[in-house]
C-alpha cells in the first residue's frame, strides 16, 4: 500500500537532481513534516506543498503552520484565529489557479471532487491551556495549574514547549481521522532536532527522578506551605535555597505536583507520537537554501533522520538562482561588456536609431552612447557577480553527500510568496509539471 521512497544515502556525484516531484511521496503519506533551518522559506514551501497536494492529488489536506508571514496568514484565512482548522475557500483557490480551473472536476475516478485545503495555526499558549483542561484529572487541578505563577513561564518560554505542543497537536489531529494528508510546518528552533525529541523529553521531564527528588518533601507534607524540613542536610536544597530562595522552590514544587497528575497521559501520548513519527505513513521533507550555513544544518539533519530510522522523503532547495547564470556564453559576453563596452554600445545605439536600423521600433531620445556604455558595463559586472553566487550554489549542491532520492529546486521568486497565486507558482516547482 505504501510506496516507500527510500531515504537511503546516494553516492555523491550522481546528479539526478530535480528528477521528480513530491507527487508520489505525498500520494502515499498521511503526514509530511517540513523541517530545516530558519529563514529558508519553510512555511511557504509547506503551504505550497499542501496546496499543490490538494489540487493535484485530491483529498482533504491540512497545513498546520507555526508563524506565517502576516500576508500569507491572511491568504490562508488564518488571520486572527487561534488553533481552529479552517477551510481555505474554494473560490479563492480557483482564482489562484489551484483546483478546478486547469482540470475541471469531471476527472475520472472523481479524485479531485472532494479535495479541499485546510489551514491551522499553532497557538502554543492556547494549545497548552486546552491540553491541561482536557487531561487534568479534575477541573480544580486544571485551574490550579493554569493559575500557577510558573505555568505561563514554562509553557511560553520553555524551549521545547513549542515543539512538544506541535507534536501533540499533530497526534491529536491525525487521530481525529479528519484528513487525508497533514502537512506540518515545524517551529523555528535553535536546533532543528529539538522537536523530534520533544515528546520523549517531555515524558522524561515529568517522570524524571530529579523531579521526584525535588518535589519529595512536598508530596509528604501536603500541598502548600510545606516546610523544608530535613533539607538542610542535602547539598542540593542548600544550594538551591541559597540561590533561588525557598519560596520559589515551593512554587516549582507545587506546579509539578499538580502537573504530575497528568503524567501517565503524557507518557502515553509521547509514546503514541513517537510511534506516529516512525510510522510508514509519515515522511520528512527537509527544506534549505543553497547557502553554506543552512545547508550544513540541513545535511546534519538529514543524517540524523536516517540515523533515527525516520523517513527522509525529500530535500527542497529553496531560493535557488536560475541556471542561466551558470551559462558560459553569458560569462564570456559579460566579461567583454564589463571590460570593453565601447563596440557593443556603438552597435546597440545604432540599432536604436530609426535611420540606421531597418525595422527599428523607433528612436530612443536622450539615450547617449556614454549612458549605454555605462549600462553595458554595469550589466556585465552584475552578471559576473551573480554568476559567482550561482557557481557557489552549484558547487554546494554537488557536494551534498547524503541526499534523499527526491531533490527539488525552487527558484528565487522576484517577489515574496504572500498569496495563493504565489503558493500556486511555488507548487509548480514541487510537483511534476502537468
Amino acid at each position, binding site marked *: 500500500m505504501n510506496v516507500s521512497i527510500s531515504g537511503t544515502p546516494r553516492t555523491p556525484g550522481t546528479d539526478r537532481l530535480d528528477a521528480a516531484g513530491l507527487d508520489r511521496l505525498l500520494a502515499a503519506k498521511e503526514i509530511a513534516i517540513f523541517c530545516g533551518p530558519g529563514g529558508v522559506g519553510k512555511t511557504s514551501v509547506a503551504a505550497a506543498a499542501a496546496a499543490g497536494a490538494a489540487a493535484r492529488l485530491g483529498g482533504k489536506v491540512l497545513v498546520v503552520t507555526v508563524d506565517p508571514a502576516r500576508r500569507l496568514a491572511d491568504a490562508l484565512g488564518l488571520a486572527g484565529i487561534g488553533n481552529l482548522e479552517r477551510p481555505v475557500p474554494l473560490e479563492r483557490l480557483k482564482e489562484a489557479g489551484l483546483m478546478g480551473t486547469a482540470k475541471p472536476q469531471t476527472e475520472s475516478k472523481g479524485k479531485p471532487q472532494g479535495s479541499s485545503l485546510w489551514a491551522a495555526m499553532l497557538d502554543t499558549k492556547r494549545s497548552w491551556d486546552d491540553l491541561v483542561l482536557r487531561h487534568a484529572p479534575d477541573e480544580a487541578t486544571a485551574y490550579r495549574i493554569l493559575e500557577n505563577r510558573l505555568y505561563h513561564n514554562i509553557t511560553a518560554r520553555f524551549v521545547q514547549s513549542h515543539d512538544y505542543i506541535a507534536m501533540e497537536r499533530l497526534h491529536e489531529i491525525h487521530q481525529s481521522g479528519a484528513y487525508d494528508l497533514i502537512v506540518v510546518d515545524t517551529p523555528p528552533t535553535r536546533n532543528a532536532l529539538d522537536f523530534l525529541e520533544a515528546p520523549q523529553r517531555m515524558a522524561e521531564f515529568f517522570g524524571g527522578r530529579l523531579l521526584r527528588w525535588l518535589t519529595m518533601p512536598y508530596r509528604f507534607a501536603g500541598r502548600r506551605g510545606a516546610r523544608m524540613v530535613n533539607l538542610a542536610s542535602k547539598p542540593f536544597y542548600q544550594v*538551591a535555597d541559597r540561590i533561588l*530562595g525557598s519560596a520559589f522552590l515551593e512554587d516549582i514544587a507545587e506546579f509539578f505536583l499538580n502537573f504530575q497528575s497528568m503524567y501517565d497521559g503524557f507518557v502515553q501520548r509521547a509514546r503514541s507520537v513517537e510511534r506516529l513519527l516512525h510510522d510508514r505513513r509519515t515522511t520528512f521533507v527537509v527544506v534549505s537554501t543553497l547557502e553554506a550555513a543552512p545547508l550544513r544544518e540541513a545535511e546534519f539533519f538529514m543524517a540524523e533522520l536516517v540515523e533515527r530510522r525516520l523517513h527522509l522523503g525529500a530535500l527542497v532547495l529553496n531560493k535557488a538562482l536560475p541556471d542561466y547564470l551558470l551559462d558560459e556564453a553569458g560569462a564570456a559576453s559579460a566579461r567583454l561588456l564589463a571590460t570593453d563596452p565601447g563596440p557593443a554600445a556603438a552597435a546597440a545605439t545604432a540599432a536604436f536609431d530609426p535611420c540606421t536600423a531597418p525595422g527599428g521600433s523607433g528612436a530612443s531620445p536622450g*539615450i547617449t552612447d556614454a549612458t549605454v556604455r555605462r549600462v553595458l558595463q554595469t550589466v556585465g559586472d552584475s552578471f559576473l557577480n551573480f554568476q559567482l553566487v550561482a557557481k557557489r550554489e552549484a558547487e554546494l549542491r554537488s557536494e551534498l553527500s547524503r541526499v534523499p532520492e527526491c531533490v527539488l529546486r525552487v527558484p528565487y521568486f522576484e517577489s515574496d510568496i504572500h498569496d495563493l497565486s504565489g503558493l500556486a507558482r511555488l507548487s509548480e516547482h514541487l510537483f511534476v509539471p502537468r
Partner: protein
Amino acid sequence: MPSTPDLLGRRLLFFTGKGGVGKSTVSAATALLAAEAGQRVLLVSADGKGDIAAFFEHAPVGFRPEKVYPGVKAMAMDTEASLREYLRLNLRMPFPARLGPLAKALDFVATAAPGVKEILTIGKICWDVRESLEGRARWDLVVVDAAATGHIVAQLGAAQAIEELVTVGPVRSQTGWMTEILSDPATTALNVVVTPEEMPVHETIDLVDRVRAELSVPFGTIAVNRVLPELFTRSEEAAFAALRRPEAVVALAGVAGPGAGTVLEAADLAVTLRRTRAAHLARLREAVDLPLVYLPELFVRAEGMRVTRMTADALGEELGV
C-alpha cells in the same frame, strides 16, 4: 532619520536578528572594527556556539575567552560554567565536587523557570561589563552575538523576569545592577540585524515594539545586511529598457557574443530583486524610527575572515569610523 549612533563608544553591544540574516557576521565585523580602532574587545556567542571564532579563521572557543585576532578575544556562553563562576565569586562556595548533581539540578530548574538559564548568560555578560566599568578593565567593549529575535526579549529581560518570580534570595538581590547596566544608553545598545526581506523586516518591527514595551534596553542601530547594489540611475534605466528590445539584443549579440541576451536577463533579475527588497526597506524605515546602516550583498566565494573583513569595512564606512 536619526543620526548614526556612536556605537563603538559604548561598552556593551548586543546583536539580534532573525535566523539566517547574518547576525554573527555583523557581530564579528563589529568586533574587528573596534579592535582595529584600538579597543580590547570581548566577542561573546550567547547561544553557546563556539564557531563564532570561525569568522576569524580560528578553532571553536569555549567559556574561557581566547584570542582569535589581535584585540579580539572570543568566548562561547556556557551556563553551567557561568554558574560555577558565579558561585565561586559571590557565594564563595567551594564545591567543584558537588557540581555533578548540581548541574543536573540546574538543568532541571532552568527548564522549570526559564529565566534561570538566561540570567546566567546575561549575568556573566553584565559582570564582565561592570568589571571594566569599575576599572578592573579587561575589555573596552563587549560584543554579544545574542539570541535571535524570537528569544532576545527573554534573554535581555531575564533580570526582570527573575525579579517577578523570585521574591527573595541572593539571586533576587543580584538583578538590580544588571538592569542598571542594561538600561544605560551610554553603556549598552541593542542592535538588530535584518535583511531586506519580508519576514526579517516584519520580525524586526515587532521586536522593536516589544522591546520598547517590555524592557528598558536602549537601541543602537539597525544593520540592514545584504543590500543589493542599485544598478542604474534614472537615465540608465531608460537605456537598459531600450537595450532589452529585440533589435538591440541582436545587435549586442553580434558584438559581445551569443550570451548577451542572458546577461541582460540576469541584469533584469538583479533589478527586480533590488526593487522588491527596496519595498521591504521602505516599510522598515517607515515603521521604525531608528538609525539604519546598510551593508552590501557580498558577492564572494565563502564565509570566513574575508567576509568579516569586508563587512567590517562597510560597517566602518557607514559608522564613519
